[in-house]
């Protein structure tokens, strides 16, 4: 019999109306943890489920071995994946913490240990992503995100990941809130890796209307918060409009000199062009200010380092 791992691991599982999937999923996670770890805990975050998910979790927990401690966090109403997982993460006490964002098990149980072993090789965060073509909307989102964010991070649709305690502490001291974990993890600046697995089930994860609505809101929020998209767009627009305004100024002067416009036309157009020129300039400055404010409110630390190396005495 192999020696069990001494590290204490936690598994945080997101549960939202998952009564059909949760029993088998939980059983699989419990089996893996029991087989490989001396001590572990599972935290199920019940995000406003309206079905019998919690009842099923309680039943499964009753049958589990005492080496795994199982608890449920009941959110007061629907919070959405990100806040719910943050709540679970705050409760977890493990040296390493698994985050299972979905209860659809489209991977072999062995993948869990693969991800853990990879983390032991010195990665503070290891993601597990299915090796398949992503949905069009997901691809579009990640492309836009990558294009406009200052950290280069290849993000995927992931089923679960593992975080080291060092990573969790870093995140806790870095941000006040964690609106979108993936982006925060990517910007934490510690070593990250992704393990691809061959999905055993090619169907897309089922989601109810609320979850879908939440996801599109989250996508919009994340693009505004974590990327330069808003700023770059407004700068580009301003540049364009300023150019047009400048052209209009020149044009009205030329018309005034060559043709003979109706009285008042030149002054009106000149006034409008100069005013628009100014307004667009002021708008850009305001947007820059807003972005600075977001950063000040939202970020706690000024910089992140990966490691400090001493090279000579």
């Amino acid at each position, binding site marked *: 019999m192999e020696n069990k791992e001494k590290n204490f691991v936690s598994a945080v599982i997101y549960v939202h109306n998952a009564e059909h999937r949760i029993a088998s999923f939980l059983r699989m996670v419990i089996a893996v943890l029991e087989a490989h770890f*001396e*001590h572990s805990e599972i935290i199920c975050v019940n995000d406003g489920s309206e079905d019998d998910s919690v009842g099923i979790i309680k039943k499964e927990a009753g049958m589990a071995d005492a080496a795994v*401690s199982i608890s449920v966090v009941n959110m007061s109403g629907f919070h959405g994946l990100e806040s719910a997982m943050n709540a679970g993460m*705050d409760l977890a006490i493990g040296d390493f913490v698994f985050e299972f964002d979905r209860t659809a098990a489209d991977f072999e149980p062995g993948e869990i240990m693969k991800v853990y072993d990879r983390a032991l090789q010195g990665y503070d965060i290891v993601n597990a992503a299915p090796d398949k073509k992503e949905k069009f909307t997901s691809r579009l989102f990640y492309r836009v995100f990558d294009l406009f964010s200052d950290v280069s991070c290849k993000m995927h649709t992931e089923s679960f990941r593992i975080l080291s305690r060092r990573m969790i*502490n870093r995140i*806790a*001291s870095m941000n006040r809130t964690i609106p979108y974990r993936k982006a925060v993890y990517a910007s934490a600046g510690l070593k990250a890796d992704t393990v691809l697995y061959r999905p055993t089930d090619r169907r897309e994860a089922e989601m109810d209307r609320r979850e879908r609505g939440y996801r599109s809101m989250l996508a919009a929020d994340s693009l505004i918060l974590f990327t330069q998209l808003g700023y770059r767009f407004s700068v580009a627009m301003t540049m364009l409009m300023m150019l047009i305004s400048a052209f209009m100024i020149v044009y009205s002067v030329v018309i005034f000199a060559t043709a003979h416009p109706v009285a008042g036309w030149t002054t009106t157009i000149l006034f409008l062009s100069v005013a628009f020129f100014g307004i667009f300039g002021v708008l850009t400055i305001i947007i820059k200010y807003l972005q600075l404010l977001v950063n000040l409110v939202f970020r706690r630390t000024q910089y992140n380092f990966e490691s400090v190396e001493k090279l000579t005495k």
Partner: protein
Amino acid sequence: MEQYDKIIIGAGLYGLYSARVCGQRREKVLVLECDPTPFRRATYINQARVHQGYHYPRSISTAMKSAGYFERFNRDYDFCINREFDKIYATSARYSWSDGTQFKRFCAAAGIPCEELHPERFFKPGMCDGAFLTREYTYDAMLLKDYFLEKLNALKNVKILYGAAIRSIEKRNDVYAVCMEDGKEYRAGFVLNAAYAGINQILDMAGLEKFRIKYELCEIILCDAGEKLKQYGFTVMDGPFFSIMPFGKTGLHSLTSVTFTPHMTCYRETPAFPCQGKDGGTCSAFRLGNCNDCPGRPETAFPYMANLAGKYLRDEFTFVYRQSLFSVKPILMSSEIDDSRPTVIRTYSKDPTFVTVLSGKINTVYDLDEVL
């Protein structure tokens, strides 16, 4: 058949305190204890706090009551009090029912000292939103036991019977008759039930109305504290957190946590646990054995508690496992919401008198004075 003025069931602090008070009045007292020595359960197996109320930020009544008795207990039992450490209370940034500001306001309202410190001196960044230097001591149950035994030995009119197994308690005219398994019978016009986790079992034998309590089989872990931790006691509030603090004058620290200290919970009237039967038949829902001496006691939850403490405390505060203590703790069902621990004294009958006491704190023992 032996006749006494008072029969006291349970040789914990409440039992022996009562025996001494009555003994000093020249009353003839019998203490019945099922264990071979006193103080083998709740009086010894707890966090050994001399409460001043910090622990109850949502129950100002409990807090003020403890604060009132704090000085008196420290004065009366000065020899067993450990004052030589700084007690730090902190409020967790997440999952706490009270935050740092509320805790401070609570201390001011209860009139107990509380000096604000910088949380990151002791805790990892972002984990606690308030840290406070407070005044809380711990007592050493074994020193307290020696003191009581010495005082009681000097009183010839007080007798302590160990290994006492009670079979039934009957009311006969103006006395209660306590019948033992070995056929002996003791009578008194006054019975005090101070059996803590066993109170409902005693009430059951006497055919009286039982307390609404739940039972938790709890583990207190004793650790060797590292150099940095030695001079501190830490309690992180107010929710699923932990305490690590000196355990009396033993030189060890006790480690407990809200989620991992209770191993099993029982909601029945009398304590029934699945481990009963692993001990050779001395423990049952009818007569609770001593968990600490039991071979069927649960495996330690130290890895869980250690990880929880390690998540909060800075890495320089180290500790190493030494041993575990187990006991069953009764919790009044009415105190779940405000987390209060009232001392309940119920007088069931007068002449003959039957009094039951249930308390979760050591320094409210003086509440007994009015019924003795």
